[in-house]
């Protein structure tokens, strides 16, 4: 199915790419640290959506063996599902560490704005004459 010159047969992959793009723009443009964390997790979700869409086959069931049918024509590809399972958990771990860093940065500089934090740390570095924290 073609609309405006774009082929929409791979609509799941297209949606994943658009989600990735939105996450990337938000990560680069927005100044708030919490929004950056959310955008990072959103980008990860987009990649998992793309990967899992690679394993789907029309008309076949989930990869859990039922009634003893072990032919490969009855189930979808299980490998991308295994990869994404690992990825989801790693994404949560990264998010947790980033949020802990955000909390520490807020306690130190009392701001969630990354421009302010960089400016404050540079000012501190100029004042002290030694290397700052950021």
């Amino acid at each position: 199915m073609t609309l405006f010159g774009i082929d929409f047969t791979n609509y799941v992959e297209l949606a994943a790419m658009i989600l990735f793009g939105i996450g990337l723009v938000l990560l680069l443009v927005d100044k708030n640290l919490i929004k950056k964390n959310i955008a990072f997790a959103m980008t990860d979700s987009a990649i998992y959506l793309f990967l899992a869409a690679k394993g789907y086959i029309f008309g076949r069931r989930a990869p859990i063996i039922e009634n003893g049918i072990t032919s490969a024509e009855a189930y979808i590809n299980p490998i991308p599902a295994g990869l994404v399972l690992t990825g989801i958990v790693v994404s949560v771990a990264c998010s947790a560490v980033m949020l802990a860093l955000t909390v520490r940065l807020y306690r130190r500089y009392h701001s969630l704005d990354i421009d302010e934090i960089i400016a404050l740390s540079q000012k501190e570095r100029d004042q002290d004459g030694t290397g700052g924290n950021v």
Partner: protein
Amino acid sequence: MSRLTERLHRMLHADDRLDREMAAEWEEAPAGKPASLPPEEVNPDTPAEQPDWWISVPFRQGRGLRRLLVVLSVLLCVGIITVLVITAQYLPHFGQAGNPANNEVSRRYIENGMEETGAVNIVAGMILDYRAFDTLGESNVLFTAVCAVMLLLRVSADKRRSAAYQLELETDDRMYEPKNDLILRSIARLLIPCILLLGMYIILNGHLSPGGGFSGGAVMGAGLILMLNAYGFRRMERFFTIRLFRAVTVCALSFYALSKAYSFFTGANHLPSVITPGTPGMIFSAGLIPYLNISVGLVVCCTIYSLYTLFRKGDL
């Protein structure tokens, strides 16, 4: 061309004018503290001492430069999305059986999965038997994340006993949640056993139905978080201390590593193990998979609970 450079020049140097305006605007602000912040150790996070940082901080990035960077980054992302969307049209079609991703590896996993691993759930058999090393790495990532968050957020014991910190904890709780809430306690008394039981069911049946260590561990962790919220820190501290956390995670990860470490010494090919797969469909079949699921589930449960309580309280 010179008009373009002139506009660019004006945009990039708009920050001087802006700095002067901002300084004039904030001269009326009460000049309380000096611009540098007090050091971290002396001052817990009391909201009464907000230093006036805005008095004389020179912004290195002016507004004009920031706008240029925003435009450039949006253009970059639009460029990336365009390239990706064009590539999406050349990808193999979604959901066709003849895709290059469906090759002989998936055929082998599906056809011989049940007899070689004994697991009815092919994905669980794959991540805990054929590709068990990846799952070990993932559990280690969770453990490392908790260690990192502990380094960042843990509050030492004598600081926790200080009056300012206790006052802050009290006021935080009273502001956002009622303490010893009757509804929460009664419902939690009914729900927590069901949640923990559901988590254990999901973990144990990981190789027979959808689920496995990660989701089951997450459900159990959520049950523990509910218990913490309903009954308070003191009661949870009675049985979930840092020593228990350390013991459980280290034992679980070591068990996982040791039980699959033989292949380092016997070669990478899957040797027939002494633990037979058993009959598919029973709970204690599938060789080592239920035990590995249990250890992964314990690691995930402890991790999730520890992350929550490190954020809330500052200690385990």
